[in-house]
Every structure is written in C-alpha cells, then in structure tokens.
C-alpha cells in the first residue's frame, strides 16, 4: 500500500494526471468556446453582432446555454428502445474523447526542470497512433446509427442511416490521405510524423507536409480536410443535420442533456480533426520564434486557425444535397486521393526519402 502511494506521488504520475485532466477539461472548454465562437463568427459574417448581453461581449453565453439545457425536461418516447436510447449519446461522446487521446499537443517537455526526463504531451503514446484515431472515428459512427434506430421513428432512422452512410463513405478518402502522410514520414506514430516536419526548405519555407513537393502535399491536405469536414457532419456536408431543421433526424427525440452530449461530441470531433490535420500536415508544434519548450502555443494557434476555417466554411458555402454529396465523395474525392497516393509514392521513391 505504501508502495502504491509512493508511485502515485511521484512527479511523473502527477504530471501525467495533470496532462490527462488538462486534455479532458481543455476539450470540454474548447467545445464551449466553439459554441460561442461559432455564434460570434456567424453573426459577424452576417453583418450583425452575436451574443452581447450575457457577460462582457457575450462571453458567458455558452454557460447560459448549458444551464438552460440542464434544466430542460429529459424526454424519452415511449416506444423507444430504452437501453440503446440511453447508450447512443454516450457512445458518441466517448468515441469523440478517445479519438483525441493519442494526439500530442507539444514536444516532450520537462516542464521547466520539474521532471528528470522529458515527458511527451499526450494521453496515450502509441506506435500506431494515427490508425487508432481513425479506428475510433469509425466507432463514432455507431453512436449516430444507434441514436437513429433507438428513437423508433421513421425519420430518425432514415436520417441516422444517411448520416452514417455519408460518414463511412468519406472515411475512405480520409484514410487514403492519412496513408499519404504515413508514406512521407515513414512511421505511424504522431510524434515521429511531427518531428519529420522540423526545419526549413531553402531556409524560409517550413518543412511541413503540406508544402511537400508542391502541389501533392497541398492536395493531400485538401482531401484530408474535406473528408474530415464530411466525417464530422459539418459545414457544406451537413445535410443530415440540416434536414433536422426541416424534417427530422437522428437527434429529434432527444432533449436536454442527451442533445447537449451529441453537440459536445460534434464539437470535440471537429477539434480532433483539426488537431490531427495540424499534426499531420501543418507541422504540429514547430514554429519560428519560440523556444522548443513552448511548442504547444504554436499548436494551439494552428488548431485555432483551422477551426476558424471550419466556421468560415459553414457560414459562407451552401450545403450539398445528399446525392451530390455521396457522388462527390465516391466519384471525385476517392479517385483524387488514390491518384495522389500513387503520385506521392512515386515521389518518395524518386527522391529517396
């Protein structure tokens, strides 16, 4: 027993617990900030001001939203399948959180000499980290399809199935763009991929994967981001989501906390896709001015830029109709991703990376 307490009080364990807590709280607070940011950005793009009443410049608006959702009545339709109805939002949120676990957000740091040796800033240091993110994203699909089924209404079921079909179709291009990066970096661990992007080409263009052998890296980045946006059911690909505003969808029968959990899952998925894209293509935590210890500042800056682009897309581009969406995924994105993969493979072979 004394041994266990000694183990728990070692600085490494405490720092690791701190990192896990920071990631968890960071994701939740990030989702709340995203709610606020989305409304503000949408407002400014539509020539109006967003929430301004609650708190200074409307900053406490997400808190007001959360409080409202907590106090709402938690409904459950009588004919709904009760175990699945209860479990579906839990699966969605759990998959969203787990997907962020292997994503590192900073270089191995000693926390200003607190630790003896550097500790990587992730929740789980896995060798096949990239694939694990992909695998857990596939699991997130189940939350949606089970929500659609458990609501036991025709519209929910069809909305859920459509959304699921969209997600698994775009997972293919997502995976192929991922494979492109694995080819470039010769490893599947996130830290190795980010470390491959240190340094500069010609001393001023950073050696990020997005700039690799222009335009191949750029195309891969584009395909990855587009597939990621379709995966998270966002922006121009949110037909299942918008259908709910018109007809019904997989989360009509849910209210208050369960509804909040679905939205939490969606925002956390967005953050995860942006973070993974930053790590794979935009150089993770490498940046020009700060010393290497503060790499996470650059990481957060890049993720913030990507999230802003997400919001920007949502409120400027009209949404795809469902059949156009599926046609785009299978007939345009998948061949483009495959040809890009072959071209990158040829490039790697030719330049002997």
């Amino acid at each position, binding site marked *: 027993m004394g041994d266990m307490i000694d183990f728990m009080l070692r600085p490494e364990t405490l720092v690791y617990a701190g990192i896990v807590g920071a990631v968890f709280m960071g994701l939740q607070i990030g989702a709340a900030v995203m709610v606020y940011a989305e409304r503000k950005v949408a407002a400014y793009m539509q020539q109006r001001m967003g929430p301004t009443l609650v708190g200074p410049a409307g900053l406490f608006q997400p808190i007001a939203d959360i409080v409202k959702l907590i106090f709402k009545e938690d409904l459950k339709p009588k004919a709904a399948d009760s175990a699945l109805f209860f479990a579906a939002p839990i699966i969605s949120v759990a998959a969203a959180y787990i997907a962020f676990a292997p994503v590192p957000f900073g270089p191995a740091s000693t926390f200003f000499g607190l630790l003896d040796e550097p500790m990587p800033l992730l929740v789980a240091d896995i060798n096949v980290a990239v694939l694990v993110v992909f695998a857990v994203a596939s699991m997130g699909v189940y939350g949606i399809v089970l929500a659609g089924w458990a609501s036991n209404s025709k519209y929910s079921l069809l909305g859920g199935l459509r959304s699921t079909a969209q997600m*698994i179709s775009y997972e293919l291009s997502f995976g192929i763009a991922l494979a492109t990066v694995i080819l470039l970096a010769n490893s599947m661990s996130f830290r190795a991929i980010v470390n491959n992007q240190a340094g500069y080409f010609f001393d001023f263009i950073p050696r990020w994967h997005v700039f690799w052998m222009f335009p191949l890296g750029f195309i891969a980045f584009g395909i990855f981001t587009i597939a990621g946006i379709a995966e998270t059911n966002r922006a121009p690909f949110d037909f299942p989501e918008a259908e709910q505003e018109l007809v019904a969808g997989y989360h009509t029968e849910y209210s208050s906390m369960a509804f909040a959990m679905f939205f939490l899952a969606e925002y956390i998925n967005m953050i995860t896709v942006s973070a993974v894209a930053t790590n794979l293509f935009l150089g993770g935590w490498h940046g020009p001015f700060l010393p290497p210890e503060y790499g996470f500042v650059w990481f957060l800056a890049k993720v913030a830029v990507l999230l802003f682009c997400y919001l920007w897309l949502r409120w400027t581009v009209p949404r795809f109709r469902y059949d156009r969406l599926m046609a785009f995924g299978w007939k345009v994105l998948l061949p483009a991703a495959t040809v890009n993969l072959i071209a990158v493979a040829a490039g790697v072979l030719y330049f002997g990376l």
Partner: protein
Amino acid sequence: MAVLGSLFVIVQRNPIYSVLALIGAFFGLSGLYVLLEAPFVAVVQIIIYAGAIMVLFLFVVMLLNVPREDAAEWDRAHPLYRPWPMRIGALLALVTIAQLGWALSRTPGIGGGVGEQTAGISDVGALGRVLFTDYMFAFELTSILIIVSMVGAVILARRQSE
C-alpha cells in the same frame, strides 16, 4: 470478453443486440491481438471489421426490420424442434465440446513463448514486405474477389430501366 460477446450473439433475442454483442466480441479479439504484440493487426481489425463491416450488418438488420425472436413460438412451430434432429444436434454439440477440451489440454504451455518470436515480425513494414513477396498470390486473389463482389453488388442493385 471475446467469449462473452460471442455467447451473447447467439443468445440474444433482439437482432440489434446480437450485432452489438458481435462488435463487443471484436473488441475482445482486438485486445487479444494487442497482448500478442501485434498492435497494427488489432487496430486494423477495429477499423475494418468493427468499423465498416458491422455497420453494414447494422444497416441490413435495421432496413429489413428483423423482428425479435419469440421463444414460445419457436418451441411450437420451428422445423428443427422435432425429436430426432434435437437428439442428433445434442450429440454433435457434446462431441464438439469434448474435442475442444481434448485439443486444449494438448497444447503446450500458454504465455511467454509467442511474444518473443512474433514481436519482430509484426512490425508494419515487415508485414507489408511479406505480404507483397511471399503471399503475393493470395493478395492478388483477394483483390480479384473484392472486385467480383463489388461488380456483383452493382449489377444486383441496378435499376431495371432498359
């Protein structure tokens, strides 16, 4: 977990719960792969099997709206519930269990031996190398099989317009 999951697949009345139990069984298998020092195979199992194929199963079960099994009606009306088929079935089950027990008791010690031998082999690069050289024929055959099934599915689902 793999065993429990597989058991629940057959025992469950509601077909959706069967599919979910199968997914649980796959997670159990994946864990076993990780314990056998093959993380790549474990993750690929989740991606492909539990991620894509089971979604397909779920789609089919949901769209066909397969009803819950009714135990009382089975006992009355199912053709396999006659006396002789039941007796032969029970005999076969006993023989299978006996065989399984005999085979399990004959394996050499469990644990330890497998890890050291395969740790070097299960690296992804080595896997790819072996797949494209020694098992090239199997690889090509699998690709042809997948193309055949895709073409078949497209033809079956085609609208009979002309």
